[in-house]
């Protein structure tokens, strides 16, 4: 046996960890579990109530009636009218339809779009695609807290601007943009003669987490997604204010008042409606519960771990997200180690999810490479419990201690002495 044979011959060490004692899902900004009530509401529409809502017979009419009931519930969640709701496949399609739909329908009025550096890729990539198509896009910077400056928005608006797209709450930090001031800027621009200026917000992370009222936000278009608040995946909506002209992405039949062709996903729409109804009814209790547990998580981590910072403006955040940077550790190593103990979180660290790009959001906020690398996002749901937070914190402390002890950098304190 040669030397080379030996190097490959070592068998993998069996994992000596005991079976995972607890599963704690703290990645609810990625997706949530469906509420049992939602599942129950959907089930008949997979089987006996299988009609195509476009059909004239009774099967079709019952499907149509179920869709319209769901549409009323989704509209009520954001204080819109049912006719202003266009069902689409999710947040990404909603963002694409809003931006491309406005750009295509109003390109004769101008070729300028304003958005921010911290948008979801569904917005950023759509804007980039339009840039390749003759549009000019302004990407507004954000402060250390993750907020845009409404005055910078005001300065960016030109006579050519046809669309402003600013996300309501950020998916990585939970930061809520200053919409009171933004809407002021937008309405002043309109009053000054820019009647064709459209205003869109990606509210995917905000709906179900804070009160969302399209009238108060002053938007023409708003994207939302069901699976972020205990509805099914693969369904979302674009709010299109009455009188707003948008071009279609998908051509075909006259579905969704001729704004989105394709047979309606009836079970998903029904589930979306039920989830929206529950979110409307339970919003205040959910907010109180999530905020209390999120703040408890941060208090515990702050008291037990040294060298930790909360990212994003702490006074303007959705109640379910905490983004923290842990000095001296890599977020992905933390994530993997937590996952082995049954705890699911996400990270802005470079290597996460197969991409080698560190979080564009945290970078835009001006965080150092070290801070971006050590970032973890904890996102709670209406169903998160205190026991789950306690377990997550205990494993987090243990893991950070081990990773910091393993680190060659010896200037770091590990765990605060109490």
């Amino acid at each position: 046996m040669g030397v080379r044979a030996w190097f490959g011959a070592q068998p993998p060490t069996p994992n000596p960890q005991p079976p995972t004692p607890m599963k704690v899902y703290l990645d609810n900004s990625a997706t949530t579990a469906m509420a049992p009530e939602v599942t129950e509401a959907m089930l008949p529409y997979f089987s006996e109530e299988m009609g195509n809502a476009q059909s004239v017979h009774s099967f079709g009419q019952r499907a149509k009636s179920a869709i319209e009931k769901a549409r009323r519930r989704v509209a009520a969640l954001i204080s819109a009218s049912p006719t202003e709701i266009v069902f689409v496949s999710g947040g990404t399609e909603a963002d694409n339809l809003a931006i491309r739909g406005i750009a295509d329908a109003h390109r004769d009025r101008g070729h300028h779009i304003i958005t921010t550096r911290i948008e979801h890729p569904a917005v950023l990539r759509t804007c980039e695609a339009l840039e390749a198509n003759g549009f000019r896009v302004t990407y507004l910077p954000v402060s250390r807290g993750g907020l845009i400056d409404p005055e910078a928005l005001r300065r960016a608006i030109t006579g050519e601007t046809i669309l402003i797209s600013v996300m309501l709450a950020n998916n990585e930090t939970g930061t809520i943009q200053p919409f009171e001031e933004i809407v002021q800027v937008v309405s002043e621009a309109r009053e000054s003669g820019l009647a064709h200026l459209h205003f869109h917000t990606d509210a995917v992370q905000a709906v179900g987490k804070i009160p969302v009222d399209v009238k108060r936000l002053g938007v023409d278009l708003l994207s939302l997604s069901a699976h972020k608040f205990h509805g099914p995946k693969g369904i979302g909506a674009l709010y299109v204010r009455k009188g707003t002209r948008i071009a279609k992405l998908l051509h075909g039949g006259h579905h969704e008042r001729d704004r989105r062709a394709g047979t309606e996903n009836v079970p998903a729409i029904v589930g979306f409606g039920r989830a929206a109804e529950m979110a409307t009814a339970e919003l205040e209790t959910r907010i109180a519960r999530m905020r209390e547990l999120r703040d408890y998580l941060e208090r515990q981590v702050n008291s037990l771990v040294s060298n930790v910072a909360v990212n994003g403006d702490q006074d303007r955040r959705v109640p379910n997200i905490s983004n923290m940077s842990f000095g001296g550790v890599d977020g992905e190593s933390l994530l993997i180690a937590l996952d082995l103990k049954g705890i699911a979180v996400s990270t802005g660290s470079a290597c996460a999810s197969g991409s080698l790009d560190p979080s564009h959001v945290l970078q835009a906020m001006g965080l150092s490479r070290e801070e971006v690398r050590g970032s973890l996002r904890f996102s709670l749901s209406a169903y998160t419990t205190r026991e789950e937070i306690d377990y997550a914190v205990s494993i987090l402390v243990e893991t950070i201690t081990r990773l910091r002890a393993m680190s060659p950098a010896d200037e770091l304190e590990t765990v605060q002495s109490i």
Partner: protein
Amino acid sequence: MYSRQVADHIANPRNAGELDQPSGIGDVSNEVCLDRIKLTVRIEGETLVDAKVKASGCPPTIAAASVLTELIIGRSIQELSLLTRKDVIDALGHLPPAKSHCAVLAIDALRAAIGECR
């Protein structure tokens, strides 16, 4: 995304720490990723008799550092000179292609530690 072996080394790093009065130290880092491996080795005669390692960075870096110690303890200097990043990757099952530089960093640490002893 990562192999069971990578996860296991993250959960249970082997030979973590630093040797007192080592024969050689390999302290290397990747400036792009901020990853760092610090390997301390004891060499007696022509044999590497003991090693300890510290590492910071992404999971493959920590796993590569950890598995490296398993691959090198008890081996002759001549055997170690033939060790390549492929051996580290094989010992970890596999690494995503974009992550093979983590195995390179481990080999760099070994070369630096042995080089110091010469």
